[in-house]
């Protein structure tokens, strides 16, 4: 007797027809939901949708189907992979049964027979186990380990119950079938066989058959119902995340680059002004799709420094609140601030560290939404005193501190005494060393600039400074949402740099680095910008800089957001530290590289206060102390100031020295 799939066994004739009849309303509910959801997002035509999806098929394959970012977190990744592959396998299995029974059989052919059928039974039993294992992990994470970032809602529990029921009832059905109608090949359905042996053998056939029919129908109806509610429930993320990845990934800007919504020099003064958004109706369907795809996994929240520091911000909450607003009947037109949905402080707390973007498994960018809302707030100018003062200082004095020219002059005179020349004195210099406000005006920051200058002079690098002509790049203005004042500064700097034919720039401030390198491109200036860690690394590798006094310290490095995660410079600072610290040791903090944790100064948050229960800098400093290092190396003057304050507050300023990598190198020359 050849093994063959016996579909609708133990069921009265006509069940197949009846099942399809029952399926119809569920399918209609599903289709209606999909159409409703896409319409609500503002998708105008299927063609437009398919066009956008087509452009992002590669991303969809990589980050959707292959789950590249989902698996980056181990337990959650394994859990999701098990459930995901389980569901796909079971879906393929059911599709094969449909093809076998409803198409091929009618044509007098069969697919599920012989060895292929046996393999089919075996593989589906294995995948069913994977699926249930995944659900078990889910239960463990949510209800036993109580992972703090996982939130319990009724709809999540119902989805879990539905999936669990489908998985378990499938095996029960198989077990009863093998009990009532035993087959010689039943060992291939090893789980069903085991369940049968454990619970059903020796039970009378007739009630078992009745039980089978009952469970069969409930299995079918629960499965149909889950499909029907897909567009209305969290399980809809199956589609919304895939769509989001395909549609939004290809058009996302590189990290660290903000959208340029207008050019101030090309602006028609009589045009209506609009910047950012205050209600969801101001978003395009692609942005709304990004909101809709948020599955409440909480990875962004767990990575968010502002959340860890007890500010009102959680990127997940922002996304979830906006997402729910999307489906509320009058939600699209409501002002998110006036309605109380979003607290302004949530928006101000963001340090623009981009950790939420890095964390999101499905390529959603919570930070982009936060910054666009910020822009809308700043446009109206209802800012507190500190924000107002910083922006006024930028406009009036060209630096966020509000120091006048003489202060700048004083420092450049100090540099001149060291032998640093201005571009005017040395017009053929290869590099311009752009010092940045934090190292021009702040006393501690000045030490960094002097160390950089000492190294460059020692190595004989051909460089000059702009001197008093150097002003703020505009970064704090752009990140606080004041696009106009940013562009005013940017255009002025670009004119200066172009006039002096500057092509290559060295910076020691990651914020200047990012702005000069990435943001000025939108305004027609391409520069070769190097962070001092890169320059020093190069000098060491080529032997132009020799270190004669190796340090013997235990050093750890804090990766700054704008050099590390946002601009992918990880190797050079480590190489530089290790070269200078030949006789010592280098240790990593628990979070480092791409997963580094912001000091709390980015995104212009250095310049104002947000209500909070803790400080990012203190949290991070504790991590540095845990390594047992004697020096915390930094690569950013703002990180330096944040940690220096944190060290004083926590009383570790005697045991842990905070130094810029330039200072470490300068000491070992």
């Amino acid at each position, binding site marked *: 007797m050849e093994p063959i799939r016996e579909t609708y066994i133990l069921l009265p004739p006509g069940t197949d027809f009846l099942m399809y009849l029952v399926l119809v309303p569920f399918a209609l509910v599903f289709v209606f939901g999909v159409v409703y959801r896409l319409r609500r997002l503002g998708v105008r035509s299927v063609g437009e949708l398919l066009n956008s999806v087509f452009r992002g098929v590669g991303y969809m394959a990589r980050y959707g189907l292959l789950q590249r970012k989902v698996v980056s977190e181990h337990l959650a990744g394994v859990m999701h992979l098990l459930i995901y592959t389980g569901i796909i396998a079971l879906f393929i299995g059911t599709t094969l049964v449909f093809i076998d029974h409803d198409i091929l059989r009618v044509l007098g052919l069969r697919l599920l027979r012989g060895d292929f059928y046996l393999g089919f039974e075996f593989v589906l039993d294995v995948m069913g186990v994977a699926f249930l294992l995944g659900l078990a992990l889910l239960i463990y994470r949510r209800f036993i380990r109580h992972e703090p970032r996982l939130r319990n809602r009724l709809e999540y529990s119902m989805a879990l119950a539905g999936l669990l029921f489908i998985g378990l009832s499938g095996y029960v059905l198989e077990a009863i079938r093998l009990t009532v109608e035993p087959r010689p090949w039943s060992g291939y359905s090893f789980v069903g066989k085991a369940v049968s042996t454990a619970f059903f053998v020796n039970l009378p056939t007739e009630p078992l058959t009745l039980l089978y029919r009952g469970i069969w129908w409930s299995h079918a109806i629960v499965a149909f119902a889950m499909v029907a509610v897909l567009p209305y429930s969290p399980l809809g993320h199956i589609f919304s995340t895939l769509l989001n990845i395909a549609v939004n990934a290809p058009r996302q800007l590189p990290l660290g680059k903000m959208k340029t919504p207008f050019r101030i020099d090309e602006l028609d003064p*009589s045009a209506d002004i609009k910047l950012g958004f205050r209600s969801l109706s101001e978003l395009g369907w692609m942005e709304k799709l990004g909101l809709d795809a948020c599955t409440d996994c909480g990875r962004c929240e767990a990575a968010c420094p502002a959340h860890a520091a007890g500010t009102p911000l959680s990127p997940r909450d922002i996304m979830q609140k906006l997402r729910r607003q999307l489906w509320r009947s009058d939600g699209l037109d409501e002002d998110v601030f006036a309605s109380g949905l979003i607290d302004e402080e949530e928006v101000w707390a963001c340090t623009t560290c981009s950790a939420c973007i890095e964390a999101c498994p499905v390529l959603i960018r919570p930070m982009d939404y936060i910054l666009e809302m910020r822009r809308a707030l700043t446009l*109206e*100018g209802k800012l507190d005193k500190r924000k107002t003062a910083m922006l006024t200082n930028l406009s009036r004095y060209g630096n966020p501190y509000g120091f*006048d020219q003489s202060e700048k002059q004083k420092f450049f005179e100090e540099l001149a005494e060291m032998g640093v020349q201005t571009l005017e004195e040395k017009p053929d210099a290869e590099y311009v060393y752009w010092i940045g406000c934090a190292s021009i005006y702040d006393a501690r920051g000045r030490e960094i600039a002097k160390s950089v200058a000492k190294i460059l002079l020692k190595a004989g690098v051909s460089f000059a400074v702009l001197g008093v002509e150097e002003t703020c790049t505009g970064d704090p203005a752009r990140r606080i949402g*004041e*696009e106009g004042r940013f562009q005013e500064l940017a255009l002025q700097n670009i004119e200066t740099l172009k006039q002096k034919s500057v092509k290559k720039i060295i910076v020691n401030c990651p914020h200047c680095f990012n702005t000069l390198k990435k943001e000025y491109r939108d305004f027609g200036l391409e520069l070769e910008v190097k962070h001092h860690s890169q320059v020093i690394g190069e000098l060491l590798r080529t032997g132009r800089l020799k270190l004669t006094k190796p340090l013997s310290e235990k050093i750890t490095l804090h990766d700054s957001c704008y050099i590390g995660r946002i601009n992918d410079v990880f190797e050079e600072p480590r190489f530089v530290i290790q070269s200078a610290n030949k006789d010592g040791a280098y240790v990593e903090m628990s979070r480092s590289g791409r997963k580094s944790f912001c000091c709390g100064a980015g995104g212009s948050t250095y310049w104002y206060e947000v209500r909070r229960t803790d400080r990012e800098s203190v949290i991070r400093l504790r991590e540095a102390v845990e390594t047992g290092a004697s020096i915390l190396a930094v690569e950013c003057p703002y990180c330096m100031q944040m940690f220096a304050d944190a060290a004083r507050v926590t009383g570790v300023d005697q045991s842990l020295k905070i130094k810029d990598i330039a200072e470490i190198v300068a000491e070992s020359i």
Partner: protein
Amino acid sequence: MGTYRMMSRTMPDIVVCVKQTVDVYQLKPHPETLAPQLSQAQWKNSDFDLNAVEEAVRIKEKSGGKVVVVSVGPEVKQLLVRECLAMGADEAYILSDPSLAQADGAATAKALAAVIKTASPKWDIILCGEASLDQNAYQTGPRLAEIFNVPHVSYVNKLEVGDRVLKAWRAVEDGVEVVSCSLPAVVTVGLEINTPRLPSLLMIRAAQKKPLKELSLNDVGLTKDDLMPRAETLEVKALKTERRRQVFEGKVEELAEKLAERIIAHMGGRR
């Protein structure tokens, strides 16, 4: 006496007087003459007056009405006036004349009153900063009230405007005095009354659409003689200060003791 509206209305028309001053925080004295180096200084709207604009805009946001900005001076800068328009004022009138370079409170009030009579004769409230950033004379607002013969309330740090009446909280030496008076009236406000909004650059650009009109002395019926200051400024000089550059050495406790002694001695022995 101005011709203002006597009918009862709920939407007040507000005139805000804004002075443009040099940024005194950035003003550097000449190293030898000690005279302030005005030619290098940057100009800005006087801080107190921005509080007045903000308060006017807030009243407008709440009760409606119109906000008119008036600025007089030797060389009123349009861009700075646009900042006030960008904050939410509806229109602006400026009077630039070199004779205003030496203006004191009396001359300024006279010039402002003439502009107001010409350009915006129907008003319910005139709001001014209680003093100016550069001269700190506290004169202009009260003098304006005298010219128009209306009540004035000064040093206001909280203001409520009702129907033909206002209620004001005045910061006086011993505490807060709450007063009310009928409209029209002149109110001068302090820095504590609000935080002026900072118009974004985009808003300042957009404010180019709002009416801003330059007037001449002739337009407002004044002559240079009318603007002669009552007081004559003979000389402006910075105080010359020098640090004592005293260094104490020793243990922290002793240092604190020494420092305290020095401070007490410096204050004439009073603790």
